[in-house]
């Protein structure tokens, strides 16, 4: 028997709604990523496109495989698997073999999301879990960077490696601006960093387009502005202080902000609402922590880049931060725990 639509709607609070749902937020983030993605693809050519596609495919197929039939449609349509795959793809080097990108996508969703109980329950940002796994598993392939090719349609042989094999890259390899600074003491001009004409991951090269996407997200109210602002301000201040001691040795503040994956990580990954603190004070602590760790790893660590590990470390600290920054409940005394 068909059920009739009720004529009287009975609802409980809340009555005022934002009209914001998980899919709508995901679509906004995807839109915000379009300029930076297109710039990366245009700059690095067809190989970069294949890497991003393989990563998305790995993520989405893993989601299909793990999620039960009842929830499959809902979980796929919210677009979070697609977004994770895209974000992971943007952090990968353009000459990475496609099968590695595919495994990265699968690990990102498998270990980063579904094993925790699905969207909203994960402790770490899934895309960064995938990237951390790839970096620990294939360290050479993950740190082989290339510059742009002459034409969009130039194919890189290493993109087409058969699964489980890897050929050393044949084209021109190049160091990222951070690698140049750390190992060759060579400073890249700011304008190059701003426009994106440097070697690096597919999505991290153009500072301008990444900020553009961030501004869009801010006006759509999909992003907690405190996190990117606190990270960037911390990085500026901390590297400025270091510059006072020895301007030759330590990177300049603006260089620190625009080089490497800092903008990509700050705007799109650190602000992940699932893995960042919920209280205003907590988001400040989170952002300052990420900013300090980034500079510490970059300047004093063994690796040229530290954005990924900084965000993952602060992700791990998020439940603790949330716990200790709970605001006082109205009517309770200061220091009253329950």
């Amino acid at each position, binding site marked *: 028997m068909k059920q009739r639509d009720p004529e009287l709607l009975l609802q409980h609070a809340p009555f005022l709604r934002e009209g914001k749902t998980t899919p709508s937020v995901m679509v906004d983030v995807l839109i915000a990523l379009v300029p930076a993605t297109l710039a990366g693809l245009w700059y690095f050519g067809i190989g970069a496109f294949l890497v991003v596609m393989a990563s998305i495919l790995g993520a989405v197929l893993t989601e299909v495989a793990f999620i039960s039939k009842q929830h499959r449609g809902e979980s796929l349509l919210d677009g979070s698997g697609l977004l994770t795959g895209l974000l992971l793809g943007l952090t990968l080097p353009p000459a990475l073999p496609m099968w590695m990108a595919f495994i990265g996508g699968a690990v990102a969703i498998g*270990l980063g999301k579904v094993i925790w109980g699905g969207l909203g329950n994960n402790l770490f940002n899934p895309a960064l879990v995938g990237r951390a796994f790839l970096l*620990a*598993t*294939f*360290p050479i392939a993950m740190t082989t960077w290339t510059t742009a090719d002459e034409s969009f349609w130039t194919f890189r042989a290493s993109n087409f*490696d058969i699964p*489980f*094999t*890897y050929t050393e890259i044949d084209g021109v390899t190049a160091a990222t601006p951070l690698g140049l600074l750390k190992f060759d003491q060579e400073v890249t001009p700011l304008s190059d960093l701003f426009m994106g004409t440097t070697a690096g991951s597919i999505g991290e090269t153009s500072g301008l387009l990444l900020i553009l996407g961030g501004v869009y997200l801010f006006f759509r109210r999909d992003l907690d502005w405190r996190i990117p602002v606190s990270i960037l301000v911390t990085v500026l201040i901390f590297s400025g202080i270091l510059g006072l001691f020895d301007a030759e040795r330590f990177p300049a503040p603006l260089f620190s902000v625009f080089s490497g994956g800092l903008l990509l990580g700050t705007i799109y990954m650190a602000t992940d609402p699932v893995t960042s603190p919920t209280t205003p004070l907590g988001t400040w602590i989170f952002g300052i922590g990420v900013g300090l760790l980034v500079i510490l790893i970059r300047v004093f660590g063994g690796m040229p880049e530290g954005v990924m590990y900084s965000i993952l470390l602060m992700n791990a600290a998020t439940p603790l931060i949330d716990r200790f920054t709970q605001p006082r409940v109205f009517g309770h005394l200061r220091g009253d725990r329950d």
Partner: protein
Amino acid sequence: MIESENQDYNELIKGIWRDNPVFVQVLGMCPMLAVTNSAINAIAMGMATLFVLVGSSFLVATFKKWIPKQIRISCFIIIIATFVTVADYTLLALIPTVHKELGAFIPLIVANCMILGRQEAFASKNTVRLAVMDALGMSAGFVFALFTLGAVREILGSGSLFGVDLFGGAFEPWIIMILPPGGFLTLGLILFFFNWVTHRREIFLERVAEAERSGS
């Protein structure tokens, strides 16, 4: 006669799948994670454990009437430690390279909770014959688990099995697999698979039972 043979068989077979010490009881995790970065290390550790478990189960079951209840744990440990010392020196004499790789984990067999667990839960309450059967089954399950983990990690982490190259030169090793995180990840995935199979089997058996009920 037939019944006792049946029981022997049951005690022998239960350790391999139904009560597998690693995959079901989750015991003996320390050697499981520490020495399984290659298949040969895993097998050597498994064999040493098999020797210690069978030997100590035999002795404990033999002397169970003379071991005072209050100090039984220390008695078990002394018996186990005796066999571990024998296994340690035997490995050192026969395959010194493997002994060097296993390092401190051979003496640490004493602390393997699976072995002590079998003495306490089984050997000290059953006949010598059943105790040996149980020990053989449990250690077979342990060797099976160690080998599974070691094989997966060696194939992915070095592209070889027992040191024999499987893929040729172009293979790109998964560095993480021979590092400690690889052990945790692989063990987690295998446990996941084991639980999934058990779960599916239960559902299947339930359905069969239901069909039989409605049929009769």
